[in-house]
């Protein structure tokens, strides 16, 4: 039955296209961008060659005379300038004499050039000297060259002779576009800031996961299990609120709770405690609330998964254990927990990945502050590449940071796939050739 195969390919094509465009390609491009120094300054398309003062400064060590030379004005008596001089319609003698005796001359400073112009037979006035010398100003400083050849050519015309290596070096420091580099990874590996961010991330993921996504979710699932169904569903609904509330409002409510004009400050104010911003006044408080904010969201998913797993345990187990005089703690320890081994593993795997990658809540609550105390890896990538105070967005470095997460994400999801044995989930198509 060929139609089934063709139909299948047609019906899966849109999904496959979207997966290719928005997963595969971005993942590969993240790897590619990570190997560049793309930033706001370099732009994302090509660049030009421009001799700036800072480029000259960078050349200072290797080629001091060239660096000094290109940063200074240069005056060349050439045809272009002569033509411009003719167009000015000053005395024709200037052009004739300059063309006859000085064509090709290069002067390293305005003074030298003007001395020659002043010595012309027709005696130009001081104003004219200035006017004429301007026409022959061929300084490269701050001029933009579209190609490398144009840059090198114009430098050579000015009398700078360079070996090919020197040309490479000059081209490299004056290029304004992005180039290939592995510096991003060197920065990540060696910077103390990144080490701090790495430990922040590990701390944040581990603590949130242990305390809330697993332990607290278990606590909610078990306690609601021991309640009358109506009461239990009220509590489950309350604890589902953090998940269904849009994140911006959810964090707004936490800000209202913690800020200096918020609930905690006002409440404690009744007892004479001066108001302060509990979210941002020090690193400990910031972490405390960041973990609560994320933990409450994480707890709801675990609660649902664990609750349905507990519901699947036959009631007879509980009844039998109570006949035998088991305490509540013994029921939890010997009946519930052993049944929850797989759900706990599932939640742990799944939430590790979401905690690693999600930075919504931290961005909206502390923005990584105070200082950079609550900056985690994914937020650092966001700040580096998409939003920061200095305004120079370093796409390359940000992509390198994201690449680390992409690699961790792929590895962990593959492990997740192995643990949860997807092959048992495929059944053979029954209507086939």
């Amino acid at each position: 039955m060929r139609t089934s195969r063709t139909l299948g390919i047609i019906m899966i094509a849109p999904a496959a296209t979207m997966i290719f465009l928005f997963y595969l390609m971005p993942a590969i491009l993240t790897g590619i961008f990570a190997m560049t120094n793309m930033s706001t300054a370099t732009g994302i398309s090509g660049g030009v060659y421009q001799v700036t003062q800072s480029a000259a400064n960078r050349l200072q060590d290797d080629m001091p005379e060239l660096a000094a030379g290109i940063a200074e004005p240069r005056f060349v008596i050439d045809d272009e300038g002569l033509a411009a001089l003719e167009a000015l319609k000053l005395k024709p003698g200037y052009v004739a004499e300059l063309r006859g005796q000085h064509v090709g001359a290069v002067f390293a400073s305005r003074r030298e050039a003007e001395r020659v112009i002043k010595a012309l037979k027709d005696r130009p006035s001081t104003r004219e000297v200035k006017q004429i010398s301007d026409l022959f100003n061929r300084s490269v400083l701050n001029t933009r060259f579209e190609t490398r050849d144009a840059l090198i050519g114009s430098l050579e015309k000015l009398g700078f002779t360079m070996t090919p290596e020197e040309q490479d070096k000059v081209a490299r420091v004056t290029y304004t576009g992005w180039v290939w580099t592995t510096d991003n990874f060197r920065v990540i590996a060696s910077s103390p800031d990144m080490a701090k961010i790495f430990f922040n991330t590990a701390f944040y993921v581990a603590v949130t996961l242990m305390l809330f996504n697993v332990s607290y979710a278990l606590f909610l699932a078990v306690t609601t299990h021991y309640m009358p169904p109506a009461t239990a569903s009220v509590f489950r609904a309350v604890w589902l609120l953090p998940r269904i509330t849009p994140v911006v409002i959810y964090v707004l409510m936490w800000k209202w709770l913690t800020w200096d004009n918020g609930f905690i400050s006002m409440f404690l104010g009744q007892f004479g405690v001066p108001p302060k911003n509990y979210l941002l006044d020090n690193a400990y408080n910031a972490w405390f609330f960041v973990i609560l904010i994320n933990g409450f969201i994480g707890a709801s998913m675990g609660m649902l998964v664990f609750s349905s797993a507990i519901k699947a345990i036959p009631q007879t187990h509980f009844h039998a254990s109570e006949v035998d005089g088991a305490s509540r703690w013994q029921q939890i320890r010997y009946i519930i927990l052993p049944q929850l081994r797989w759900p706990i593993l599932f939640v742990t795997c799944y939430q590790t990945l979401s905690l690693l990658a999600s930075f919504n809540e931290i961005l909206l609550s502390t923005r990584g502050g105070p200082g950079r105390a609550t900056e985690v890896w994914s937020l650092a990538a966001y700040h580096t590449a998409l939003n920061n105070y200095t305004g120079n967005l370093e796409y390359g470095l940000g992509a390198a940071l994201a690449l680390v997460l992409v690699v961790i994400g792929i590895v962990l999801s593959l492990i997740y796939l192995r643990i949860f044995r997807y092959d048992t989930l495929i059944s053979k198509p029954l209507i086939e050739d």
Partner: protein
Amino acid sequence: MADKTQISVNFSSVPVIFLLTLVSLPLVLMYTYLFVDTISNSEAGSLIPNELTLEHWRFLWEIRPGKASIWLVTLNTFIFAASITAVILIVSSMAGYVLSRLNVPARGLLLAGVMVLHAFPSVTLIISIFIVLQYVGLYNSLIGVILVKAAIDMPLGIWLMKGFYDTVPWEIEMAGLVDGASRFTVWRRLVLPQIKPAIMALGLFSFLTGWSEFILPQVLAPGAQVQVLSVYLASLIADDNNFDFATFKAVGVFYVVPVLILYVFFQKHLMNIYGGGTKG
């Protein structure tokens, strides 16, 4: 039959209810004040409201300086969420059927891929997506961010649809084929009606995640003309010059009420998706 609601005859449930009430207090408090503060004023330093007012809802009829009109923003949000829902429903109801029933090359690989992507933290790709959208000129447009958001939620959609198709008995399709219908007709006329509840659930879920999404529109479409409610609210809060919690909360309530209404009415539909695990 009194025991029917009682899980355990030996223990009282009062202590656990008390304990859980205590830990739930902060949440209840925050949500209560979210609504109370929008329609009342209280004296400085006091937590008890002393007058009712509608002044915090001014944003509905006044345009704040430098901001888009709330109605334009709401329309954008609606278009955003509805388009995402449409794209996800169409694409994943087709792909889910293929993965569940049809014999295509590399079916196992595709299924594994979908499962990996379901767990994969897609927000890590946002930097390269941002650069690509700038290249192709879809930066700051609703179309670009709709496609990205739909693609990011799609693995979950395909996965769920595949699961629902798996529960449809093969006999229905066999009967259709025997009667001479093509595979496509069988899917369209016989199988799709069987999974209407699933389509309903996935549609609602996609609409709600689209409505709530913050980081993608913030990064990929922050411009005033294409702003959605989450970005609008975040920009209000970030503006230090006009700091006013009550107005923020009023905008917040305006934004959250559709979510809560949908959730209350369709809780049963949504529950099996939230339980199945979502990102975030």
